[in-house]
């Protein structure tokens, strides 16, 4: 190789040794564009099955007689609760749906007490990491059965849940719901009461 050729080759090697790393470093300074993807959107739906504990709290008498307390024991045992829920998302956080459920409990003389709530509900769902925390309000009717009598009342059920999003199809978690159940007795207003109950259930939720 002639001295000119050696000089040219050295220059080329030097060029590659200096310029190429510099070029790479320039490209390293540009971060990739990240695009945020919402967890849910309009059209997403879920179906939830719940089962757990029914906890009778107290009856509230808004017009107690003199000397009587407005709050009285329900005399009911703790019982079981279950429900099925369908919901559809309006956006990533707001969802609407309906719930059909049932509870059972027992009176002091072992008589069976049943309630079947049928409610519409609206909720707002917070998302963090792999968890979802919806808060919601249900309103509808409550079919009550005790011994040979059956009544239909209105019902309000505020509640909160916590779910772990196992994968894109399934979530699992628990729910705490408060029952606010007025019973109006027009024939004898002294018998009008507001039932206050809790239910605590665990859930399996399927997304589709």
């Amino acid at each position, binding site marked *: 190789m002639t001295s000119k050729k050696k000089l040219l080759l050295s220059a080329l090697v030097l060029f590659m040794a200096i310029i190429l790393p510099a070029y790479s470093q320039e490209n390293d300074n540009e971060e990739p564009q990240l695009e945020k993807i919402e967890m849910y959107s309009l059209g997403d739906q879920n179906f939830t099955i719940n089962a757990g504990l029914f906890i009778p709290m107290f*009856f509230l008498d808004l017009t107690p007689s003199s000397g009587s307390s407005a709050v*009285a*024991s*329900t*005399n*009911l045992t703790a019982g079981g609760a279950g429900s099925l829920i369908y919901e559809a998302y309006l956006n990533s956080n707001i969802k609407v749906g309906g719930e059909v459920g049932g509870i059972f409990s027992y*009176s*002091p*003389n072992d*008589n069976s*007490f049943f309630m079947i709530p049928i409610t519409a509900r609206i909720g707002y769902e917070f998302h963090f990491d792999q968890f979802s925390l919806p808060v919601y309000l249900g*309103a*509808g*009717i409550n079919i*009550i059965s*005790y*011994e*040979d*009598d059956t*009544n*239909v*009342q*209105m019902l309000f059920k505020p509640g909160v849940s916590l779910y772990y999003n196992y994968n894109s199809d399934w979530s699992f978690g628990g729910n705490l719901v408060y029952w606010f159940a*007025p*019973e*109006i*007795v*027009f*024939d*004898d207003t*002294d*018998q*009008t*009461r507001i*039932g206050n109950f809790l239910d605590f259930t665990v859930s399996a939720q399927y997304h589709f």
Partner: protein
Amino acid sequence: MNKIIQIFYISLILIMIGSCSETGLFYSLENEEVEEDNNDLNDSAQFENMIDTDTSSTTDGYYIGNAGMTVYYRDKTESYSSWSSMTMPSSVASTEFASDATTSSMVYISPYLYASRISHDGDDYVSGVFRLDIDLTSNDPGDVSSSDWTEIESYTGDEDDYMYYKLFTVNGIMYINALSKDDDPDDDDNYTAYSTVYTSSSPDTAASVSTNYTNINGYLDFGEDENDDDDIVYTEEVIGVAFDSNSTYWLIYNNPHEDVEEGHAYFDSSSDFSSGSVSSTDTDYMITDIFAYSDSDSTNTDRILISDVEGSIYSYDVTNTGWDDDVDVDDADIDCVFHGFADIDVLSSDMIIIGTTAYDSNEGEGYFQLDMSDSTLTIDEDDEFSSNYSSSSSLYDASITGFLMDENNERLFAYTEDEGVWLNISEEWSLE
């Protein structure tokens, strides 16, 4: 969106209207008390009859209850005591009762107890009427053995030919209604049923029905009935007897023919209805019970009350010997068939209570009160002598079979079809 909100509000209003309750279920639960069970009588024991063997004493005698396969008794010395079972007759003549033998009815004509029994083992039917020849005012029913019972009538047969006995008593007179189903030997498809009523004024010495009782069918216009199918269809069937303060005997019976159901009330000065001045009143409905009310203070009108399956209660003025307007049961909340009466004047002045019974679509609804001092005779659903008779009690919805009022001890028993036997003491009901 506005439309959705409007629909929501309208739905809520409709729900509020529809949710109005006649009965406060929460109120019932709030006030429910544990029903005390006093002793070892089965909570669902169904007494057909109940007897006080000594109505003149607070401590002597026994309460006896007929619960079909078992007859129970207990003493009266304590308000609450355990029930025990009595030994009943084990056979008629030389034919043993089957293990499912039941006491179909029971009456007490002091000092003796009378009972009718029936059993069937396959196609073999055995039935009979018996007298217990032991004075129960002074002897313990627990000492009774099968041999202490004297047979005064019996029948052995099969499913196409057997006898069913019902016993009634009033004013010391015994009435036996023998109902039979008999295969017509001339036609295998044609069955005959007939009913016979016998009476005796001295049942304590009567050796048998055939020798010492009088057949009074002719005075009551009873007859045979032929039926073309295999159903058990009885002809006229006695429901009850009564004796009013005018010394008039009453007998009520039903005629449950397939096409026409009728109730009849016969009344006469003679206990065998033979005086020739028998009066009768027929109703278009079958009768459920009869009760003779007599006011010890002679302030209220003495009456005969008769209830029927349509929920009516007929009222007969004993003093003026004529029928009055029916008892007023027009309250819309009261739609029952009545059965079982008791005079509870010692618990609530001038008051009687009337039980209800399940019949067809009607369910039992416990009992109601009737103030006999009120000439309008209006049924009242408010209980004025108990502190715990409410919708939270199972007695409140019970089908009542009958009452026993022990006036000396101020104890009131209510025996039901499916809610056991109840005792009211000091204004409180409890389960026996």
